[in-house]
């Protein structure tokens, strides 16, 4: 498998339940997969997703609750809008919109969750590294 970085951004509720259950069951996740947990996907804006690509992510998967399950209201719908817009930006940038996907889960979909991650990792590995070679913001 090509050396690619996959970033997952997961809502604390249903998707993280799946992640937790997968960990407890000792299910293998793709190598080079990192997860950021947020309280709600509604917190994630276009900038934060773009930032992942700026800093060298080869693929980003946004892991959401189903619309009707959101603890806060419109979280996943905000996610749909932002993902759709960033996918378009990634297409313009030549990075490719297929490097950003969103998936919704119910809390008990552990096996589906693991399978989705493996499927996504395989597609990104086939695409190879992000053509925007990583450049970091300078830090002091």
């Amino acid at each position: 498998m090509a050396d690619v970085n996959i970033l997952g951004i997961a809502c604390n509720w249903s998707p993280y339940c799946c992640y937790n259950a997968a960990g407890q069951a000792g299910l293998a996740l793709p190598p080079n997969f990192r997860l950021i947990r947020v309280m709600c996907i509604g917190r994630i804006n276009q900038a934060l997703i773009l930032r992942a690509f700026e800093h060298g992510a080869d693929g980003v998967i946004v892991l959401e609750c189903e619309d009707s399950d959101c603890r806060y209201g419109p979280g996943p719908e905000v996610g749909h809008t932002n993902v759709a817009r960033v996918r378009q930006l990634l297409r313009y940038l030549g990075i490719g919109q297929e490097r950003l996907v969103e998936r919704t889960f119910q809390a008990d979909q552990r096996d589906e969750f693991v399978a989705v991650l493996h499927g996504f990792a395989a597609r990104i590995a086939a695409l190879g590294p992000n053509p925007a070679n990583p450049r970091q913001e300078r830090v002091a």
Partner: protein
Amino acid sequence: MELNAPEIRRLVKDCGLYLCQECGKCSASCPRFLGGREYSPRLLAQKLITQPGDRAYIENAVWECLSCGRCEERCPSNVRFTRFIREMRAILAADQGLMGHQAHDGALHSWMRIMTAPDLRQDRLGWLTPELKIDADSEVAFFSGCAPYFDVFFAGLKVDTLGQARDAIRLLNFLGIAPQVLANERCCGHDLLWSGDAENFAALARLNHEEFRDRGVKEIVTACPECFQALGVHLPRVAPGDVIKVTFLLDLVEREVKKGGISFSPLERRVTYQDPCRLGRMSGRYQGPRDLMALIPGLEFREMANHRQGSICCGNSAFLGCDAYSKRIQVARLNQARETGAELLVTACPKCLIHTTCALRDPVRGQPWNLEPVSLVSLLADRIQWSPAETPRRD
């Protein structure tokens, strides 16, 4: 880095800060200060010279400036304050990292930095519709800048930046110019330049310069005053070599219209005009846009209380530090526009259009403004025509 380091002292001297007479006209004309922010260009200048140890004040103040240049316009000592801010930000950023608060969480700066990747192959020309005449071998290129990206990112505002890019090409086509549109042009880097990221600005400038050269471009036409400044004034400083002519679209239109034979169809509306800082104060173009609007029959032009050199910022520049004070500047400006009785708020800068539209769409204010922001390029493209007697024969 100490703030009395030789590099900073040299910049303070080069920008004429020692000439400051402490008259305070700068602070009294600063939109940010007038908006209630405790930010004073006069005090910043004074601190730099007499109290460089007051790092907290200086380092905060350097990121406050809108770089609109209104202070510079009023300054009796010709202190070059916007240049000072631009270069001081680069010095501080090189030492401490980028400190300004980037609006929209830095999304725009992020895609600008992504564009510094040399091997990027953008897919950005989907907006070119078949009726637009494009010539891949033309020596004239239309620089669309961030229009495709804004169109997606600000989709919620419905500012239609791509519609304005198409209108710009329609104007060029009307004037007999079929430009090329570069598939892989980068952002002009204006916002990185003004937010202290000199390194990535230079990277973009060099990539753009290479792209222009490789595609045989001799002249760039842009409809954005920021691109006009960044490509025309700042690019040659970091990308030496072949000089590529940079033309502001409205200059070109004005020149062609003055040759005669062109007129505009009527528009029965009351109109006022927002002078963009990069077009007015930085490029000295106040009269051109007004002359062009005066050619539209039926258009009733009304000047805002603050106009031309005294014009007030649309609230933000370089997508840096948009906050409650920016909003107060915008509301004050929009109130000035409303007081003229105008129905259309015309501007010549896509950023002014985005910011005024954003402020007008504020759902909290409730009351209707009856004011519609419009791009001057679109206004002209919709109305330009050959004068009836002079329609070129088509046989």
